[in-house]
């Protein structure tokens, strides 16, 4: 038998980095980019093929020395109740640019869980899927904020704040009255999310009086952003993108490539633009009015060296 699973990629609209420090953030799944798994019975035992990335692995124990993918595979098998020697071959494919903050590891985790659950003929509730994805994301990211896999597992536009010592986590869907048209630019040079997050954490701990107000301001923008999204107020969202980008820049995670893309998008008539994801190379999003506008801004971004760009429409 064949079972399939998939999960979309995502973009962070507001609040990257600040979300790690307990501030709210908003992310939304992509409609035409993600990761998918095909699971087929195979007497050869469990194997995970990722031909696109030239990988073919067996599940491995939780030994930290082992690479993340085999460990995630073992966790996923156990999570859906399949034995460690299950006769299943998983083939995975994706079309997300890796390591630029589009949720490739979260989409990988959720697509793997969905495919294996379907193979095991088990249905996963949203809560179970989130719990499983949290485990797998832990393998890839150490201490994930939860924004990525929460958004990817639930789908749509999600307002998220991680649990703090003084308050439980907040997960809320943001209804979008109409598609949100974005141009997305991606640089060839990818950043290392884990490194960027831990470096910023160290700096913020050393000098909380410098960084805390910036995190607070970013959190406030996420709240404003949720209202503007629900109202379909694209020009306001553009302004909020610009301000958010300035604050992320203040955190020291932007790069020359990101600044070039943001600046080019604004010159091309975008309503506003910002870095999305962890930064350190990475990706930018530009708020646009309608599909044609988004395509025009995307092609302006593509004119930059080593930049790939596309237009996308986000749906609730």
């Amino acid at each position, binding site marked *: 038998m*064949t079972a*399939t*699973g*998939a*999960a*979309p*990629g995502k973009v962070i609209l507001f609040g990257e980095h600040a979300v790690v420090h307990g501030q709210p953030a908003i992310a939304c*799944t*992509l*409609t*035409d*980019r*993600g*990761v*998918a*798994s*095909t699971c*087929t019975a195979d007497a050869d035992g469990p194997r995970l*093929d990722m*031909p696109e990335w030239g990988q073919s692995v067996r599940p491995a124990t939780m030994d930290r020395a082992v690479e993340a993918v085999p460990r995630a595979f073992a966790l996923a098998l156990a999570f859906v109740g399949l034995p460690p020697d299950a006769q299943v*071959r998983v*083939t*995975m*494919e*994706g*079309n*997300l640019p890796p390591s630029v903050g589009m949720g490739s590891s979260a*989409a990988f985790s*959720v*697509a793997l869980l*969905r495919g294996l659950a*379907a193979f095991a003929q088990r249905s996963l509730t949203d809560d179970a899927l989130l719990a499983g994805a949290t485990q797998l994301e832990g393998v890839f990211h150490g201490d994930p904020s939860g924004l990525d896999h929460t958004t990817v597992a639930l*789908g749509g536009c999600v307002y998220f704040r991680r649990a703090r010592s003084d308050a439980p986590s907040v997960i809320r869907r943001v209804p979008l009255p109409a598609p949100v048209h974005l141009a997305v630019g991606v640089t060839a040079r990818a950043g290392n999310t884990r490194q960027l997050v831990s470096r910023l954490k160290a700096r913020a701990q050393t000098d909380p009086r410098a960084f805390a107000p910036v995190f607070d301001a970013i959190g406030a923008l996420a709240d404003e952003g949720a209202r503007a999204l629900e109202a379909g107020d694209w020009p306001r969202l553009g302004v909020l993108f610009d301000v958010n980008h300035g604050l992320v820049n203040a955190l020291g995670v932007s790069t020359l490539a990101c600044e070039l893309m943001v600046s080019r998008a604004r010159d091309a008539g975008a309503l506003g633009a910002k870095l999305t994801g962890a930064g350190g190379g990475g990706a930018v999003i530009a708020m646009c009015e309608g599909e044609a506008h988004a395509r025009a801004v995307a092609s302006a971004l593509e004119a930059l060296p080593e930049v790939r760009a596309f237009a996308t429409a986000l749906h609730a």
Partner: protein
Amino acid sequence: MTERDARLPGFYKLDPDARRALLKARFGLSDDDLAVLDDGGALTTARADKMVENCVGVFGLPIGLGLNFRINGVDRVVPMVVEEPSVVAAVSNMARVVREGGGFTGDADPPLMIGQVQVLDVADPDSAVRALQAARDRIIARANAVHPNMAARGAGAQDVEVRRIDAPWPMLVVHLIVDCADAMGANAINAMVEGIAPLVEELTGGRVRLRILSNLADRRRARARCAVPHATLAGPGWAGAEVARGIEEAWQFADACPYRAATHNKGVMNGIDAVAIATGNDWRAIEAGAHAYAARNGRYGSLTRWWNDGDTLLGEIELPMAVGTVGGSTNVHPTLRVLRKLLGVESAAELGVVIAAVGLAQNMAALRALATEGIQRGHMTLHARSVALAAGAEGSVVDEIAAELVRRGEVKLGVAEQLLAASRSGERAS
């Protein structure tokens, strides 16, 4: 599910305002819903301008309701958008007759559609086919990554098949089988075959040309059936068994002759297209699929089948049914929302069965009319001959008078006598 009663006796006698008022009471429509139905005012030019290019206005068509339908035990009032007179009345009448025998039953296949990738210049077709088959899982995953939300809901790409065409032009055709859930699926499939094209080129060493869905949706068929006791077919001047035999013979004509089958199927599509339009579905796609399916055995034939078993007339229809209840124009056109509320189907499969049942009802109406017309004319001619004889006609004059009586539709002794007198005085009655 709300309990509906699809019988609305005397509905046809009301004026449109009164009909809408009745719908409001019966189906929980709001005043806003009713306003949407009135005078086609719902779709504005501004909105239409977002739908097509060079838009200059909005075109109106009548919305009629097919009544009396009972399908799989559920009553349905079926909205039909059609400009041709008699279509709505015909299906409503037949649904009333079929209802007496228990109504229609039907089922639909899983919503599997086919996306095609045409591969040219393949140097070694045998090994290319093997490579494609070996990479089946990978191709499926690549397709699903392009439309992750579909596969996340348990639908999406499911399988890959390869067709090898050697003549007249050598090519490979990769079929991607996609479960479209409650969507028609055209956009998703087109994105998916676009997404797998580079992988197909890599695997085959060939050159991909076309990548697009197939409208011959023969994996996604809908069926409807009915069993009609002969007694319910009886009418003034004809016996039920006679009508049933007439319907079977009329069907045999369509089954045997493509010239008749085209007209026969056109009648089926009178019903099917009307519901497809009223539910925001692409009726050209349904038409294309239906006619291609009707020719699947190499000769174009009937989409329906009629036969008699004892004193029961049995009918069935089967055809590809690529329809959706989500996506497409359903979100753009305000009238569709109201009509969907009236129809009350919950899935694409349910809608497919309703549409098939309407097609079968329309076909039954057409065949019955053609068959009873023959019977009626036969009866009338016999009757007219005896009337002409009673009036005193003799020899070849009997047939002349009888024919004239039938032509006038007045098979009466008085008229026959007048005609006879006129004939004898050497002039024809005007």
